[in-house]
């Protein structure tokens, strides 16, 4: 059985418990690790979280491992707003069977609050909607109040 670590090189000690089957979200900027876990997991999931781990790529990182569930990469599109550098690995029998960068959708529907305090979506019960106007760095425009924001100006609803 191949038990090579999936988030660190073979020579290093694994920093977070390996999972047999499920999803590993790696290379999360350390400060948004818990937000990513909150976004992608349910109260029924078995979840392993590593925070402030060493990363040669981004300095300090977070890892979230969801045991027993393969995440729909499209459903994880909201990650593009808070952790565009993250990767999503699908694990089957301890092996990485799929590795994906975070896809950037055309529209972020009801995943983040508008940063404009006077936007109608902050005052009515109504889903938010942001259109992508630039991908690198990620910039979005609120469909309602028409203000443009950098991705890191928005806060996730979950």
């Amino acid at each position: 059985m191949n038990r090579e670590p999936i988030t660190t090189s073979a020579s290093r000690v694994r920093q977070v418990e390996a999972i047999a089957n499920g999803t590993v979200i790696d290379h999360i900027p350390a400060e948004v690790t818990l937000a990513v876990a909150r976004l992608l997991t349910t109260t029924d999931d078995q979840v392993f979280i590593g925070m402030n781990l060493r990363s040669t790529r981004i300095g300090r990182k977070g890892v979230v491992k969801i045991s027993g569930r393969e995440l729909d990469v499209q459903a994880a599109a909201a990650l593009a707003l808070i952790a565009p550098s993250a990767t999503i690995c699908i694990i089957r029998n301890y092996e990485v069977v799929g590795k994906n960068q975070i896809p950037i959708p055309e529209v972020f529907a009801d995943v983040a609050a508008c940063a404009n305090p006077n936007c109608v979506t902050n005052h009515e019960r109504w889903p938010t909607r942001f259109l992508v106007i630039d991908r690198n760095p990620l910039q979005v425009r609120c469909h309602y109040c028409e203000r443009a924001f950098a991705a890191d100006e928005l806060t996730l609803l979950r």
Partner: protein
Amino acid sequence: MNFHGRHIISIADFNRAEILAVLRASRELAERPRPELLAKRQMATLFFEPSTRTRLSFEAAMHRCGGQVIGFSDAASSSTKKGESLADTIRMVEQYADVIVMRHPRDGSARLASSVSRVPVINGGDGANQHPSQTFLDLFTIASLFPQLERGEELKIAFAGDLKYGRTVHSLVTALGHFRVRLLLVAPDGLELPEHYLTEARAAGLEVDILPSLQDAVNQADVLYMTRLQEERFPDPLEFDHIKATYRITAAMLRSARPELRILHPLPRVGEIAPDVDATPHAHYFQQAGNGIPVRQALVGLVTGSLEAKS
């Protein structure tokens, strides 16, 4: 080009051909009023915050074309006070009217309303965001005074005053991106046109000059678009007094103006245009307000299907 059933939410939703079609329909109605155009049509005016001039202009436009108006003029007399959602208010009102005109204090409220309404919604101002019928009437006024705008010859249009928070300025600058215009900008420190509007204007091919004084704008411009300075933008009342004195057009300043210069203002003015300017041939702000009638008739006529858009 089809306007029937279309919402009028943001000037950014319109391309050049569509803007020209609105101007053409407005011109026809200005030259040849049609008292029966909107007969049997019902307009609901939902003013969740007061705006006397916009409401009066829409209502007068409707009445003069034989249409009827229902509505309320402040949120205290609507069921919003009882906690009704905006979406529910719209779903109720659309049963009673062929077109909805709304003014609301929140940015994006008109877009939200348009996403639930089966009848056309015309945005009469959503917070600090958009006020497209004002932009169409500003453009109509400029195009009527200076036909070269539509012929693609360069016009010099100066904007003065609060260019940072002035919603009418932002929308008009966006719309002017479809024409050949040199923008002359003059604003107090801290109230300059936001960077992204500058970038957008230049990307649309507009030339932009930042001018040191109002007098420079008076001397160079074909059109001078004045805006109101709002006291609440200035933390220091002394500074406000100083700026107010600097951003004030008087008849004396107009002696060095080009004869064709016309001064526009979305109104209400407070101190930025001295009353002695009213009697000069340069004053055009009251005629501008009057243009609200044919322009709003054209918009209502087009979206209710009473008028055909001609390209």
